[in-house]
């Protein structure tokens, strides 16, 4: 379908602008642990940037494990068609 109009994310510089905002926010949040005093219950919460590290590691492991699971679980779309 012909569509001449250029949209926001068609320009790579807009995409990198959004990503730069994300990196800046992440940097600020990582630094926030220096200044903010938390009311913690679990000892792990006292680890510097615990939630940031946990979030990053959790997501990477989730995706890497799920990708491996595909080898076992994935089938063709018509797999159940001959029920």
């Amino acid at each position, binding site marked *: *379908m012909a*569509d001449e*109009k250029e*949209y*926001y*994310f068609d320009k790579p510089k807009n995409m990198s602008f959004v*990503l730069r905002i*994300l*990196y800046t*926010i*992440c940097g600020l*949040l*990582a630094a*926030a*642990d220096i200044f*903010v005093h*938390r*009311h*913690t*219950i*679990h000892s*792990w*919460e006292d680890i510097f*940037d615990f*939630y*940031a*590290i*946990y*979030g*990053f*590691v*959790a*997501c*990477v492991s*989730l*995706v*890497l*494990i*799920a*990708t491996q*699971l*595909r080898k076992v*679980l*994935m*089938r*063709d*779309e018509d*797999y*159940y068609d001959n*029920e």
Partner: protein
Amino acid sequence: MITSSFPPFVLFFVAAMLLPFLRGYLRHALLLAVPIVGGLGLIGLDAGSPWQIFLFGYELEPYRVDKLSLLFGYLFHLAALISIIYSLHVRDTMQHVAALFYAGSALGVVFAGDLITLFIFWELMAISSTFLIWARRTDKAMASGFRYLIIQMSSGMLLLAGAALLIYQTGDARFEYIGLHGLGFDNLASWLIFLAFGIKCAFPLFHNWLTDAYPEATPTGTVFLCAFTTKAAIYCMARGYPGTEILVYIGMVMTCFPIFYAVIENDLRRVLGYSMINQLGFMICGIGIGTALSINGAVAHAFTDVIFKGLLFMSMGAVLQMTGRMNGSELGGLYKTMPKTTVLCIIGAASISAFPLFSGFVSKSMVMSAALAEGYHGVWLVLLFASAGVFHHAGIKIPYFAFFAHDSGLRVSDPPNNMLIAMTIAALLCVFIGTNPQLLYGLLPNTVEYTAYDMTHVLAQIQLLFFSALAFVWLQKQGLYPPELHSINIDVEWLYRKLFPCTWNYIKRIYCSLAMSINEITGKILYGFGLSVAHIYGEQGIIKKTLQTNYAVFMVMLFLLGYLLFYLSNLN
């Protein structure tokens, strides 16, 4: 109000019966009036049971009002209103009638004060909801609807058996705290009811009806489906089994395993199905912990989940309606021509991900705090993992693959106005509840002081979510993120869709070949026997040869002569 003296389901059932006779604006007016009038009728209701019926010596309460049932009453009216607005453009009487019966039955469940009434509405809910799946009128939807119905009816049968046994043992039909008190026959009733509720709560191994059927329903039907069945089951679990420790671990598993499936699933409504099990896991966990805070968290999360999950299903329904496609591999770039749907979907995604200022944050954080406070540290770590995971698959994957990612070239407009209005109401509610949680907290069954917005909670959650987003970007840039592929993933349903039918076919084949062999052998034996008989009695047989008439007469005469001689010799 006059409606407050009738159980809320009455209004829905009467409207469902009138609806086929109305057309155009009258039909729309009736559809909209039902949840509005019914919902207003609940405001200011006092706790109690306005209706009591005696049947076979048991006291039935088809309309029991207390804080817990009232909260779900409000929620279901709200969900019905949003879903009805969303489906107003649909010109299919069957869908509208089924939807009204379904919403009414769900209200019947949450206001049922006794197990007999509960069972009746439990089954009505199963039957009426099935029509929303069949309404898609495809072969896949028909087959999926039958599987869904069988599993839902099995839950009903377990509930009936458990309720009958419990009433027989206790002599009381009221639906109150049941609990699990060990194994053995004395506790069989409570286990049966627990399992019945568990099936509809999508417990692990019993969850596949949800991810099988919901994505096969009509775009509007799924919005109704995601609101009622599972939340009615959560209500029942919260009433019957609060503080049952096994639920903590069942809930923990429910939060965790679906997110792996969600990451590799291609059908975006099925991704939401898995995401729904994940959210139900948080509620089940909260019910299992059993403190005032965790129960409040569980039901508050049910409340917010109906709205944000409804919003996500509505946005995906809009995509399906406008493009006719639902696979992530076929979508992308829709933000260009569906900007309103994109923004509304992102609000739903922010809410389910529990971003501060959105509804999921004010409810989910209660369950997390309760888990930590009660010493379930391992469970808390898993819930934290699941929180990051839900942001990954529902918060990022859904909007990203539908509206951004690679440009699919599809240039469709935003959906009809009624769909946009419904989504806007849900989105506003997500932000409103997220920014004014005290209003929701005031409706919760237990009185507990809880502040969601303190620096510890907010910073922790934002760090978790932003670094999850960073992980997504990193994985994409490294090419490690699994691409959306034309495929399906096998789940527990493989047992009853592949293994059992294949095993049955195998047994049939073995039986058939065995039967053929037996037939062949028997045939050979009979043929051999036939040949032997022919050899003796046939044209050239021994008997034929020897037993000619004259010879036979001669033999008989000989025999008679012998007999005569014997007789004469004995006379002397």
